[in-house]
């Protein structure tokens, strides 16, 4: 909330080295919500800055979430988890065959 238009301009130009044509700002009202106790709670107001870049500067918002790759990563994690737990599971299965319904310390 403390940053002015000039501040935003300097921030982007000096730290990120991206030229800026103009900056518009507005203060977005924080939403009123009811919390778990039923009281009305207001979220903080937020200042939003709209920055115009020069014509030669190009920026496209990247596609951050690629479902296929994401699922692959998830499968990898699941596989490693299964591998880690499979040994214990096999032992438990063996015990269940010989002495079903008893905890492992009970068997010899």
């Amino acid at each position: 909330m403390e940053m002015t238009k000039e501040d935003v301009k300097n921030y982007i130009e000096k730290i990120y080295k991206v030229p800026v044509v103009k900056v518009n700002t507005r203060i977005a009202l924080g939403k009123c919500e009811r919390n778990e106790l039923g009281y009305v709670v207001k979220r903080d107001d937020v200042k939003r800055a709209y920055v115009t870049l020069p014509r030669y500067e190009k920026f496209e918002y990247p596609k951050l979430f690629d479902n296929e790759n994401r699922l692959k990563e998830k499968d990898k994690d699941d596989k490693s988890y299964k591998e880690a737990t499979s040994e214990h599971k096999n032992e438990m299965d063996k015990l269940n065959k010989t002495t079903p319904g008893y905890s492992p310390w009970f068997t010899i």
Partner: protein
Amino acid sequence: MYFGSVGFKSTYPLYIHKKKWQKCSQALKVNDLVLIFDDNAKRNKALFHTTSQRSDLMEFFDIEKNWNKQKIQTGRSWRKGELRIKSNEDLHKLWYVLLKERNMLLTMEHACKEEYEIFPNPERIDKVAESMENIEAVVRERNEAYHLLEIGESGERPAKYISNVLGIIQTYRYCQHVIPRYMNTSWKKKHMFYYNGYAVRKFQTLYREKMWSQRRKMLNREKNTAIALIKKFPSLNIDALKKQYPSINVDRILASNKLKSLRLASRSR
């Protein structure tokens, strides 16, 4: 040598020249690392790595490699001891590296929130915040030391104890004003360092009563726990008990009627 994930331009390529280092260490018989600046470092580029500097709006996003990952492993945050060794210039650079990192993490967190995805390893934000805090602390230390040496005062913002409208003591930190104090009516209305009137006096008595009752209850609780401890463990170390509860009179407890059955009263004499 460590460089942050974003990295900064080193003016000279810096690396450890193996042969030269061996020669030096033999001649000087020192095991310390000898760093050699060399202009012809391009040949041995693989010895020293820096991440290329991206000066773009894409700096607000993570590296493309990390986009779809469930887990992103990172190191710990910077400690004060490590930062104390660094020069002011290095700290200044590191501050901006961390600032960019923080912006990147916050952007990624927001993007994840919008897509209803889980943000991987959110503790990274805390790590960055901690290291930034540490940098600030180290810089403050240096500033204070410099001021004490040169001026004889710590360069901290001056403050004093004042009593507010309700007669409660507070710290007030001074700040600069454009309008002088006697003319600044809006400031005067907000900052009243005096109190009077019947209502305030009544409030103060009630407040003091409340504080005392809290303290009394605390003392009673401590006394009762001490008695219970002595009852449960008759061969208790009394000195340790005194250390544990400094605000109560242990000798008086030992002589009290509650411990009559244990006949421990003789201990205190």
